[in-house]
């Protein structure tokens, strides 16, 4: 069976330091993959490899293959702009661009060439709805995104990604700076969204992975230690390191 993503022997270096070591896995569609591991285990590098954001850092080098729908995203003529439209990303710190809520959400679609105002309006409403914040902001779409609270800004970022109508959503510790209620809202949105999207969620909060991930992958020192159904990873891990990490003995 083919996954949405098929990663084969991915090894990544940054200025000669190995960040990822021969990672191979399949990421199936319409599921949430939780990625856990201690700081410096390579989980963020792994995530950013999937939409080639790592390349923006000089000194990054990757080997191995990453197939998205069986196409190699490292192929020389592969369109990276198009890749990032299909594979959206939400960062750890909520970054609202200094423009209105409406312009934040319509940023991606406009880049893609959508000019029709009705179509943009639709997208904005649909995306904000999916991020559970339409009712909070529908009367003040012209307000600057910077005026929103941290939790709202992060849901704005999620809505902004959804407005591109991507196929995959990558989330890099999206709730690390958020209170439990905002976290709950994001998790609710993600659980709702996985029917249509493939979701990869990097999290420092193992409980969050346990709550919403269908599969969980555990990274340690750049290596994929174990991947499997979340329930099994958290109840009967096959590797001792996984057990140690999820029970809090290290990390």
């Amino acid at each position: 069976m083919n996954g949405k993503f098929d990663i084969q022997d991915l090894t990544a270096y940054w200025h000669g330091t190995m960040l990822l070591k021969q990672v191979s896995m399949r990421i199936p569609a319409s599921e949430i993959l939780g990625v856990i591991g201690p700081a410096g285990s390579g989980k963020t590098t792994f995530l950013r490899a999937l939409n080639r954001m790592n390349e923006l850092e000089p000194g990054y080098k990757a080997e191995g293959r990453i197939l998205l729908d069986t196409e190699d995203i490292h192929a020389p003529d592969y369109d990276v702009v198009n890749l990032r439209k299909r594979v959206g990303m939400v960062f750890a710190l909520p970054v609202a661009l200094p423009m209105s809520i409406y312009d934040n959400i319509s940023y991606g679609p406009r880049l893609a060439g959508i000019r029709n105002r009705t179509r943009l309006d639709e997208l904005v409403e649909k995306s904000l709805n999916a991020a559970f914040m339409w009712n909070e902001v529908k009367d003040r779409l012209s307000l600057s995104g910077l005026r929103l609270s941290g939790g709202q800004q992060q849901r704005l970022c999620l809505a902004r990604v959804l407005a591109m109508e991507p196929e995959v959503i990558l989330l890099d510790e999206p709730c690390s700076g958020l209170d439990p209620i905002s976290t709950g809202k994001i998790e609710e949105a993600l659980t709702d969204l996985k029917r249509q999207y493939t979701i990869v969620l990097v999290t420092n909060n193992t409980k969050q992975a346990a709550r919403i991930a269908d599969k969980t992958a555990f990274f340690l020192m750049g290596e994929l230690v174990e991947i499997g159904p979340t329930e099994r990873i958290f109840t009967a891990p096959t590797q001792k390191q996984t057990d140690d990490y999820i029970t809090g003995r290290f990390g």
Partner: protein
Amino acid sequence: MRVPPRHTQRLAIAVLGGATLLTLAVLVFIIFFVLEKGLRIINFDFLLLNSEDMGKAGGIFTTIVGSVILPLLAIGVAAPLGIGTAVYLTEYTVESKLTKIIRFGTDCLAGIPSIIFGLFGFIFFVTMLEMGWSILSGGLTLAFMVLPTIIRTTEEAIKAVPKSYRQVSFSLGATRWQTVKKVVLPNALPGIVTGIMLGIGRSIGETAAVIFTAGSSLRLPGSLFDSTRTMSVHFYILAREGISTDNAYGTAATLIIAVLLVNLSAYWMMNRFIAKRS
């Protein structure tokens, strides 16, 4: 002997506050001195009539025209060049030996005395390219003179735009140019405008480079190839040749007021722009 912190604290406030006060006092003194001597000369005739008798009588209208056209031409040439260079250096190149050399070069260029630019402009534009003493020669010379300032301030402004904005933009499928156009430049605009204002200020006040390249004709210029005289050159000639001290101060006061107006309107525009975005 150890001085207790609350004493050093008081001392710090006194020294720092004193420095600020002294700076302000000097500034206010200069402005008041010039305005006090010059304001009573200024009236509609002074502003709107042509000079007569080498500037002894009549107004300063043609020099106001010169002081508007020259900086405009200089900024019109230097701003696109400078902003383009700064964007290229910060967004399109990786920090390397070459960019360091280019940056060092612009810094050196910024430190060159203006009279050297004047001499260069005289040899290159006026003589070699046979443009003569003209608005074009003067404007281009001033453009080269303010170019380093514009490049460096724009670069600093662009670097101050958070990296995360660029990452977000790229992650939403933007190309580099789209990111520059939609995120980087709008956010760097206040800094860029500051650089342009500095450039305008420098070129309005410039005297040495202008005498060498634009000449000092008091006639109203009819084209870019005509010579012109700016207010600062007029002031210099009136004072130096002892033609009319009163008219010299009148010109100086007009110049100061003009610079103040330019700065105030730039701040006003910038604040409106910032208020709209945040």
